[in-house]
């Protein structure tokens, strides 16, 4: 029961945050709404016993990425942009298209009952010792992507520097 209630709470937080993110005029407000949304997602991780992921979400996303965003927002002067029209001219077409796609998308999801065997819900054991499990998987089974991810981050760093610095 509590779980259900919490789910809806986090879900509402997530969705509301997301909607505000794409609708608010001021970019800083958007960022703050995004933080709310991400926090909602983090809560949902927690609900599913993904504690490690919860931590990553909070630390990395909310702590890292959002700071990056805020920095950029400060760096590039967005005041002018805030006074402008906020939506692209074809917003109506886009909305229709998105709504259509979304409807179909959801319909497919709900039709895909075969995916979720009712029994599976009960059988699903909470992943014991979440952090250990994650660690073992990450450094054994997912060693290669882990290493590659380091390359990815290296590239991102280099890229960020190359792009943002005035003179290399």
């Amino acid at each position, binding site marked *: 029961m509590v779980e259900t209630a919490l789910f809806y709470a986090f879900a509402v937080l997530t969705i509301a945050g997301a909607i505000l993110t794409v609708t608010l005029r001021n970019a800083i407000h958007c960022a703050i709404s995004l933080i709310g949304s991400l926090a909602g997602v983090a809560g949902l991780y927690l609900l599913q016993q993904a504690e490690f992921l919860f931590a990553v979400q909070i630390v990395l996303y909310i702590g890292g990425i959002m700071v990056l965003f805020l920095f950029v927002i400060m760096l590039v002067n967005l005041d002018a942009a805030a006074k402008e029209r906020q939506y692209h001219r074809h917003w109506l077409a886009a909305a229709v298209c998105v709504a*259509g796609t979304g409807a*179909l998308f959801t319909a497919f999801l709900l039709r895909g009952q075969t995916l979720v065997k009712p029994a599976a819900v009960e059988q699903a054991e909470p992943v014991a010792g979440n952090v250990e499990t994650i660690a073992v998987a990450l450094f054994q089974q997912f060693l290669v992507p882990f290493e590659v991810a380091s390359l990815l981050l290296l590239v991102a760093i280099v890229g960020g520097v190359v792009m943002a610095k005035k003179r290399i």
Partner: protein
Amino acid sequence: MNFLDLIWLIPIIPLGGAAVMLFFGRSLSKAAISVISPGSVFISFLLSVGAVFQLAGLHERLHQVVLFPWLPQLRVDMGYLLDPLSSVMILVVTGIGFLIHVYATGYMAHEHGPNHGGYYRFFGYLNLFVFFMLTLVLANNYALLFVGWEGVGLCSYLLIGFYFHKKSAGDAGKKAFIVNRIGDAGFILGMFFLFQVTGSLRFTEVNEALRSARFSPEAGVFGILSLTALLLFIGATGKSAQIPLYVWLPDAMEGPTPVSALIHAATMVTAGVYMCARSNALFALTPETSHIVAAVGAATAIFAASIGLVQNDIKRVLAYSTVSQLGYMFLAVGVGAYWVGVFHLYTHAFFKALLFLGAGSVIHAMSGEQDMRKMGGLKDKIPITFATMFIASLAIAGIPGLAGFFSKDEILWQSWSSPLGGKMLWAVGFCTAAMTAFYMWRLMFMTFYGEGRMDEHTKHHIHESPKSMTVPLMVLAAGSVCAGWIGMPKVFGENGFMQAIEHWLAPVFETGKEVAHAAAGHGAAQHDTTMEWVLMGLSIGAALSGIFLARHIYLRMKESERPTGGAMHPVLYNKWYVDELYDFLFVNGFSLGGGSMMARFDQKVVDGGVNGTAWLTRLVSTISIWYDTWIVDGLVNLSAFTVRALSYPVRFLQTGFVQSYALVFLAGVFAIFGYYWWVR
């Protein structure tokens, strides 16, 4: 020396002469040219004479020499055939050809300019012509005949356009070639039909086949044989200047006079007659076509004669006269009297060549003037020319004893009496005879009698032509007198000499005769001696009255008193407005109907100056151009346009706004889900 086996040399030697002239002529002296060129023809003449004598000694008067196979698909060889018909032709071609060559050495001697104004070129062409003409008459099959046929057309083109700096000369040459080509198209098709019907194009085999029982005469029906014969005849009308393809011949007078004499009087234009005589078996089998031939011949004869009545250009008179005489020959062929046609061809060669050469001599004396209205009184100044022309005029007018009389009279008689003939044909021929006498003597009186109407300068220069010109005239005059004696009417008595030509040619027309008999189903034409005498008398009367009428009008009457011919005069003078009719039909009618855009093209076409016969050409080419501009290019442009048009939607999408791209992206996603949802 076996001349018979050397007949292939007869055409080759003038070809050699032509090659020498055309390729090395520039470095040769005039004298050398004057020897080589006529000399080569003379050698041919000697060879011909030898061959003909040997031929006479053969039992079956036919000799073939096959050099090598030529067009295997049509089973056609480079093969030559000498028989009585071709023997007459080669003698005429080489004999008269030689005389005209000699004459030309004098006539063309005054050509100036670089390389003697193309003196060598002239003789080169002339020799080339002789080669092709001999190929034509010596060929043993239709295809090789066609080689000569086309070749003489080419030489005619080249020689008509000899003075190529004159635009009119070039135009005339082109007109001649193209009109001839139209006839040739008929001839080609005719040949294919013939090949299909008889399986061969060799004369002997064709005759053999036609004689066989496979073919029945097509009297009263117009069958495949008739079509074949008609197509061949269309070829003949082109070459021999018959209605409706005669228009080129008068224009062809742009060429030098010896050319007119040789090609457009004596030899080439008679090729059609020769060909029809050659195909006598075919024509004999197809009375329907023969009727057409006779009708066309008669119509041409009187039509051209009527035009000749009023022309003022001396050569034009002779040109129309030629057309008219050719009409006679076809009349003879059409009524089935093939030998008479050939006979007239042969006599006509003498007197018409003589007339042209005489006219040339006159023009020569007049420093190039051709308008008879500016002549007169030349009788004493150029006596030899006058005398010889006098004889020729008598001959063509049909005064008894001279060559023309015998052949023309025989034609008239045959057209009266032949089973294929008729009174109407005779009547037309009769009128023509009178008109012939009239216009010829009009020419004589205007040219040689009365007072000189030329200007002083010209008058001062009038002189008799050199020997090289007068001697051929005299030889031809002798011919004009005597040539007819070998073909006297039977009523004059029958013996081997008096009807020599008929007997000589008889084997050739044997086949035609046979099948004609089979066709008519009864004996030869009735031979009413009295009637023949009467008709002969009538025609002599007509000739004489024609002469005297001319004398009355053109010698006795003052210029102002002369009858103008009333309404008819302009009609005749303008040649029945045929050229204008062609122009009207082909040029004006077309442009009026065509609207403004068409008219613009038409302007180009008219400027182009292709003459009347190119009507169809113009129409279709205008359409073609139009098609090319609007449809074909249009299609190309259209496809380019389509490609471009199709690229606009792409441009519409690729607006440069990243969110538009995202929208397209999402639309793609939507389409995929939509497909999965609705289509499946």
